[in-house]
């Protein structure tokens, strides 16, 4: 399916009208700059997704995509590709895998169209292009399409190996290697994924994050023992292990949180028990250590509560409150 077919096909009769209107719209007509229009469409797509209006989201995505191509900047193509990813995720969650697959056509074209990042008009590296590629890989992996995952992965390798911008692209793109490794893992290339994460320099947080994400995926794909195996082998810091077993922040669920989201409550509680055992081993040598241990127990208490185990939630809270304040 090409882009035009998609636009005409995605909007329940309105898309072609919308497209025609859009094609005739100039900056002077709307009073907006093209960048402002792009930002507005980006916001509208997100709002449609948040309210569950995926037809509206797809219509505006078509307009956004056309504008992004015409602007032809690394920013416009990155915005368009990431908006595609947002709609893709919503469609897939909604069970519309054929529509989601069609969205990847747009994403792939925006990947191809993303030029190098610039500074003062000079190309400096392909960081944005690698980011778009990593997001595209994740969507192909979500569809289980190993061949397309490999195709994009090959393109990324070419970007970081090319003579001119390759070295700078490699250095600028470590932050995306955890997601790229996750895509490989999702299509069964477990060893390659682990090797790729091991290549992320230790000073970058994405190295630990990469192992945490692979452990989470192992728990979702297989079982907790597979996840624990990754943690035992690759994560040595007890705090990093605790985070892997619970969640990192409000938008990055890890093992227990993800299992709960998947409705696998018993396994989630088993992961929380492992996390509790890890927290029990936290140092109490300094006031800061004690503060961290209290925080860990409070975090556990909240998660046990969310998993419906009030008794364990209460026990974890008691453990927290039995410790001195610390900070």
């Amino acid at each position, binding site marked *: 399916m090409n882009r035009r077919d998609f636009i005409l096909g995605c909007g329940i009769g309105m898309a072609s009208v919308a497209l025609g209107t859009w094609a005739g719209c100039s900056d002077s007509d709307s009073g907006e700059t093209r960048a402002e229009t792009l930002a507005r469409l980006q916001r509208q797509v997100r709002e449609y997704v948040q309210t569950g209006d995926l037809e509206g989201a797809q219509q505006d995505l078509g307009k956004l995509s056309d504008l992004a191509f015409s602007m032809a900047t690394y920013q416009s193509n*990155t915005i368009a590709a990431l908006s595609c990813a947002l709609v893709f995720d919503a469609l897939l969650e909604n069970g519309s895998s054929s529509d989601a697959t069609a969205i990847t056509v747009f994403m792939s074209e925006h990947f191809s169209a993303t030029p190098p990042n610039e500074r003062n008009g000079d190309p400096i590296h392909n960081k944005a292009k690698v980011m778009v590629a990593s997001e595209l890989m994740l969507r192909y992996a979500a569809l289980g399409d190993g061949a397309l995952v490999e195709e994009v992965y090959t393109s990324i390798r070419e970007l970081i190996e090319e003579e001119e911008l390759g070295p700078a692209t490699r250095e600028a793109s470590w*932050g995306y290697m955890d997601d790229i490794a996750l895509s490989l893992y999702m299509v069964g290339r477990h060893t390659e994924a682990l090797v790729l994460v091991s290549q992320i320099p230790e000073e970058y*947080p994405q190295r630990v*994050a990469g192992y945490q994400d692979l452990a989470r995926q192992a728990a979702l794909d297989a079982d907790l023992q597979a996840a624990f195996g990754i943690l035992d082998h690759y994560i040595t810091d007890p705090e990093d292990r605790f985070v892997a077993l619970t969640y990192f922040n409000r*938008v990055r669920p890890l093992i227990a949180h993800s299992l709960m989201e998947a409705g696998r409550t018993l396994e989630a509680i088993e992961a929380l028990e492992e996390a509790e055992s890890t927290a029990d081993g936290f140092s109490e040598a300094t006031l800061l250590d004690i*503060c961290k241990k209290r925080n860990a127990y409070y975090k556990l208490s909240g998660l046990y509560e969310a998993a419906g185990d009030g008794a364990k939630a209460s026990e974890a809270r008691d453990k927290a409150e039995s410790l001195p304040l*610390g*900070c």
Partner: protein
Amino acid sequence: MAHVVTDNCRGCRFTDCVMVCPVDCFYARPDMLVIDPKECIDCAACVSECPVEAIYGDDEVPDDQQDMIDYNAKQAQLLKDMGNQPITDTLDPLPTAEQRKAELGF
């Protein structure tokens, strides 16, 4: 539309977010990071990287942090006017980072 670094970053400045920003829109103050709203493309990639949940979309900033929207814009412009470049690589967290993180409950 842009993302905004809120007060949780003050005293931490972990910079985990910098590596994933595709447009290099983070600037470093001595005490925290700020985002230049003129450069930010609202991709949200930085949000999942912050260990102290300091980053929000400007339409999601908590009520008691609304002033940080203007603060990010003004401070980023000030740093640019002073000749600062965006930061493009991780920096060591501030010496107070671990203490501040624990105090914030993370």
